[in-house]
């Protein structure tokens, strides 16, 4: 069973049939005796072969007919040669249109590149065997390699290949000399296009095809699925390009100073200067973060949460405000999403007891409908059962707590304390010295262990603040 992992519904292949059909129409016009390219004769030793054109004639005709300038005509002409509709007589391996007096000829339609008839390996093997028969040592290195491979892979059919090659060779010999030369040239040009030499650019290259473009079997099921897809595509809400582009511009303006490609890393890019201060200063466990980092936290709540240092700071703020249950619930839901399947049932039970039942120690304040859905879902817990509640809680934090955090003394204090590391400008000699004095980097396992211990300590410290005990304290006072 093939696994189809893309969703663009057979747009993945490059259907060149329509393009090739137009090219074919152009070629037919080109060879018209009255209005096409002027053809001359080619003189070999004693024979003349008709229907040969020069590169510049072709170029001039294309430019005139399609009303393009020379550069475009050159590109189109090269495309014709690269696809194999016209082949060069001199220098047959380079498939370009030379805008000078070099000679070209039309390819016979039997050898046109049509997707329906793929050039099969058996035919290629027959062709190579035929080349072998002519004279010893006419195969190139890559062709010899392919020949040997075919002898191994197509071994059962090898006798047929040799037999057919012999017969085709003999049949060809019956022809007159001129025709023989023409046919040999044509065949050679065809195989240069279909099986290009290694490291040569091939016009017939296309990305992986998941669907055969000539597959004519369109069943009822296929049309039903296509219709559903298109209906859904039409029903999707659209955004005006001004709006989406505006959003993109806003995003770029916000983040452009933080992009490591667009703005220089302070103090210095470790890959360039061999000095890892930048990484040291930006560790997740660092005490005092850099100013850029702190600024980044103010962009959005997601940025804040994605940075472990930022999360720590936010939790500090929430502890002061006694509203840590939202954050704790969000983190618990994240643990469930990323956790192991075995722990799913236990985790869901703890979360239910801690956050969701009325009167729980850290009861979260979400609306009734979401609460109902979540509780019902918890009967059969799966990874994403808390998704609705998690989103709701996140939105609550985003709309309310986040802005209070940004205005709070915790954040402002952090902004004041944040350091701005000076920019190092190392000369080349200093870079080399840095490279020599480089310490081995910190093992990521150690960093992870540090994070884990810190997390456990934070969990213990930030244990549910029982409202009842505080009430008691206040009462006592």
């Amino acid at each position: 069973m093939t696994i189809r992992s893309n969703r663009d519904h057979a747009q993945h292949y490059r259907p060149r049939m329509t393009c090739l059909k137009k090219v074919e129409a152009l070629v037919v016009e080109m060879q018209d005796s009255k209005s096409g390219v002027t053809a001359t004769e080619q003189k070999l030793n004693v024979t003349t072969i008709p229907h040969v054109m020069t590169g510049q004639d072709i170029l001039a005709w294309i430019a005139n007919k399609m009303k393009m300038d020379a550069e475009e005509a050159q590109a189109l002409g090269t495309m014709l040669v690269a696809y194999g509709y016209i082949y060069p007589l001199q220098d047959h391996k380079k498939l370009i249109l030379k805008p000078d007096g070099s000679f070209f000829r039309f390819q016979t339609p039997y050898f046109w590149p049509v997707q329906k008839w793929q050039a099969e390996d058996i035919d290629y093997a027959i062709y190579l065997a035929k080349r072998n028969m002519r004279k010893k040592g006419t195969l190139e290195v890559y062709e010899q390699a392919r020949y040997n491979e075919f002898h191994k892979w197509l071994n059962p059919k090898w006798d047929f290949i040799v037999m057919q090659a012999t017969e085709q060779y003999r049949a060809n010999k019956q022809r007159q000399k001129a025709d023989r030369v023409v046919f040999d040239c044509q065949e050679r040009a065809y195989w240069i296009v279909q099986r290009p030499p290694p490291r040569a650019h091939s016009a017939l290259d296309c990305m992986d095809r998941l669907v055969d473009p000539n597959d004519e079997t369109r069943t009822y099921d296929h049309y039903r699925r296509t219709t559903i897809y298109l209906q859904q595509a039409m029903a999707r809400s659209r955004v005006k390009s001004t709006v989406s582009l505006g959003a993109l511009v806003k995003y770029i303006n916000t983040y452009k100073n933080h992009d490591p490609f667009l703005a220089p890393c302070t103090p210095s890019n470790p890959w360039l200067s061999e000095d890892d201060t930048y990484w040291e200063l930006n560790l997740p466990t660092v005490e005092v973060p850099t100013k850029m980092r702190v600024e980044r936290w103010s962009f959005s709540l997601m940025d804040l949460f994605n940075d472990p240092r930022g999360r720590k700071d936010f939790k500090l703020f929430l502890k002061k405000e006694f509203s840590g249950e939202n954050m704790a619930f969000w983190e618990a839901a994240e643990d469930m999403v990323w956790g192991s399947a075995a722990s799913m049932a236990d985790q869901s039970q703890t979360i239910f007891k801690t956050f969701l039942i009325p009167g729980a120690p850290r009861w979260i304040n979400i609306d009734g409908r979401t609460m109902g859905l979540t509780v019902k879902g918890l009967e059969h817990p799966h990874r994403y059962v808390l998704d609705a509640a998690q989103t709701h809680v996140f939105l609550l934090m985003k709309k309310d707590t986040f802005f209070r955090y940004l205005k709070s003394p915790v954040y402002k204090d952090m902004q004041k304390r944040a350091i701005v590391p000076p920019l190092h400008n190392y000369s080349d000699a200093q870079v080399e010295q840095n490279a020599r004095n480089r310490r081995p980097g910190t093992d990521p396992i150690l960093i992870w262990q540090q994070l884990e211990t810190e997390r456990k300590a934070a969990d213990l410290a930030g244990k549910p603040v029982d409202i009842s005990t505080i009430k008691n304290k206040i009462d006592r006072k």
Partner: protein
Amino acid sequence: MNRWRRSVGELQARRQQVTECEQALAALSKVTACFQQMASSLGSNTDGSGLREELADIRAMAHRIYTGLHKRLITLLTEMEQRQEDREQVERLWVLFLSSLETFQKDLQKTSSLQELFPLTQRRDRSTLIKTGYSGGSEVAARAATVQTPWVSGEEERCPDLQKQISRMDSLLQEMLQTVNVPVWTVEATQEAWLEVGKEEHHDDETLEDLMQVEVISQDSTTTGCCHHLNCRLGCLLCLVN
């Protein structure tokens, strides 16, 4: 039945049948090769009703050969016992026959679409034929006409027209793959690689490469190399002389 009990006559008859099949395969190969050579000039300036008739004749001949060969091979493969050397040979013939049919069917499909692409029903259609430099001639057809079936003809049906022949061949191939269980990979080639090098006699001593070489020199001896610089002998991409 014990091998010793079989009459000598039966053994001889069988061996004769196998050689007949081999000859038929060689004939089929010859005919399909001629067909391919002639089909390559479809759509070119030598195309015409004459060429298409010749193609139809060759097609009919091929049809006769392969239907007869199919019948005989089927009977050979189904009637037998486990006789090793014979079985291998017949299986080999079967596989070669299969590949021969597949290649021929591809050629037929190409012919069919080319004939549709370049219809010759009207006079002005002749101007759409591509000028490829051929000068035509029916030598290949003459060669194909010399092929004969190794058995006495008489019992075959008439050759169907092109489309029907293609579809019938499709069903024939399907049937072949289903009736007899001959795994393709068990057949081994009897020829070593590179054995056919230089095997054919060369009446003329020139090869295509020599001819092409001659051509380049005779056309324009000053522009070897990519640019007109005197010392440039390289291909365009590597030229640094400029």
